[in-house]
């Protein structure tokens, strides 16, 4: 017993004080139950396109099993430069301005560690992906959360940022299309944010992992706006649009000085991203339109379905415009989002993620991922309707 007490005392204080992700706890409960329909999964239900998988097997047979350049295969960086120029409207030199990483998660960690001195502030918006706050703290930064609101579609405004920014703020982090809200930002919305970043001389880290998944209008990248490319690190990867989560492959595009600094951390801690995953990514870029179109159409039909079903059952939900998440409000039931999710799970065996896992202002909402078959969604909607139609006995 003495041993464990003293070891806990020896832990790094930052690490010790950060709680485990709320999603992790919830996962532990769901795995003890059978026949659960999960709307809690933040990854595509589609298989990685067959040509990508087949080509990865071929790469393995051909012996692509060695270290690659720290930056990643140059052929892959060249292909990415073309893809990003075409899809995001921003041009990067594949020799010095693109770094291949182990998912966007590593890229985000590298970007923050490359920029932050202890005490530097990082502005970010909540509800957001579960790792942002922790990653900022691990980098010894000070997280400044800006709360986005359901009533304006969970979009970020300049006024929200102005209310939080201080002279010590160095970085602005963005994630649109957004996990968990499904919000997107229009070009006009982003222009305001871009002006703010320029005037406050902030570095922007933009996580655009869901950029291919917008349903009613094309995605705009803040990196493509005037004067932003020079101060922006664009993060993207293959997990969502190509359904390649397990490959763990992401990339960062940005000014050479920043990419070089990120590469140094990557070089000493990770060396390089998996060679096989890099080969898979190269194949994925061979015909992105074909791979993504069918999945995008299917996600759109599911989005329409889930939005219609929520409206019919009287569950208030802003219309999701991107990613594959709906974020309905459950405030009127008088339960916390965790209680609501646990009770729904126990009574109807539908798993959703409590909004509070995505930041304090996610309280009062639950995240419902529609990255699952339409048959599952249909059954989940029947069960949720039944659940909210009768008095709810909390079981938390």
């Amino acid at each position, binding site marked *: 017993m003495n041993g464990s007490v003293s070891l806990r005392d020896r832990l790094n204080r930052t690490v010790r004080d950060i709680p485990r*992700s709320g*999603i992790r706890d*919830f*996962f532990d409960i*769901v*795995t003890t139950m059978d026949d*659960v329909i*999960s709307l*809690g*999964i*933040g*990854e595509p*239900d589609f298989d990685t396109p067959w040509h990508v998988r087949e080509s990865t097997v071929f790469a393995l047979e051909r012996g692509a099993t060695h270290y690659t350049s720290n930056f990643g295969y140059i052929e892959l960086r060249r292909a990415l430069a073309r893809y990003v120029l075409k899809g995001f409207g921003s041009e990067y030199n594949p020799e010095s301005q693109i770094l291949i990483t182990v998912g966007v998660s590593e890229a985000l960690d590298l970007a923050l560690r490359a920029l932050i001195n202890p005490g530097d502030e990082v502005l970010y918006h909540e509800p957001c*992906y*579960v*790792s942002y706050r922790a990653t900022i703290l691990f980098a010894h930064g000070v997280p400044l959360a800006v709360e986005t609101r359901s009533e304006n579609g969970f979009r970020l405004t300049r006024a929200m940022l102005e209310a939080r920014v201080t002279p010590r703020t160095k970085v602005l982090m963005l994630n649109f299309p957004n*996990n968990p809200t499904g919000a997107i930002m229009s070009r006009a919305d982003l222009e305001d944010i871009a002006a703010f970043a320029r005037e406050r001389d902030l570095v922007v880290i933009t996580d655009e992992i869901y950029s291919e998944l917008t349903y009613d209008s094309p995605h705009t990248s803040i990196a493509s706006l005037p004067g932003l490319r020079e101060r922006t690190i664009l993060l993207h990867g293959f997990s969502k649009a190509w359904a390649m989560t397990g490959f763990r492959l992401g990339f960062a595009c940005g000014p050479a000085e920043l990419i070089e600094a990120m590469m140094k951390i990557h070089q000493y801690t990770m060396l390089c991203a998996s060679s096989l995953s890099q080969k898979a990514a190269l194949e994925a870029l061979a015909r992105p339109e074909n791979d993504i179109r069918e999945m995008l*159409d299917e996600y759109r*039909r*599911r989005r*329409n*379905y889930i939005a*219609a*079903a929520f409206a019919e059952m009287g569950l208030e939900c802003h219309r999701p415009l991107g990613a594959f998440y709906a974020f309905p409000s459950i405030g009127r039931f008088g339960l916390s989002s965790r209680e609501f999710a646990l009770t729904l799970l126990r009574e109807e065996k539908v*798993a959703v*993620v409590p909004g509070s*896992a995505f930041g304090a202002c996610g309280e009062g909402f639950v995240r419902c991922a529609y990255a699952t078959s*339409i048959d599952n969604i*249909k059954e989940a909607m029947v069960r949720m309707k039944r659940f909210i139609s009768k008095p709810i006995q909390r079981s938390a």
Partner: protein
Amino acid sequence: MDELLKILQSNALESRENIGRMLNLPADEVDRRIADYEKRGVIRGYQAILNEDQLDLDKVTAVIEVKVTPQREGGFDTIAHRISRFPEVRSAYLMSGAYDLLLFVEGGTLREVAAFVSERLSPLAGVLSTSTHFMLKTYKRFGVLMRQETSDERLSVSP
């Protein structure tokens, strides 16, 4: 292609209400459009996709390549329609390349199919030659894999 048709192609049993939710349309509008497609002959029917290998049927399927002489009036269509009307012929296509028509022919036994080819198909005026291949096993039909792969490797909750 109209998304409505895509949905029906992947599941013709989908209810009008559900299709309406997916397409942001009222259910009666979905009904109206489907009726229109049926009336125009765009939708020719609805069938189940069976894994016949599991059913132990007394049935053989042959794929037959046919060379024909196009007719002076009607080209390939006249002879192709003539051949297509035999109930043994389940599918028929006009092809480019080394032969003209590709037929999928079903019969109870190999002998029955052979009889169809030698007694019905080959003697037709305009049929020059046939080449018959028997089908041994089906791996995929109409875009559906015959082997069920249902396991979902994903964690049940993830960020």
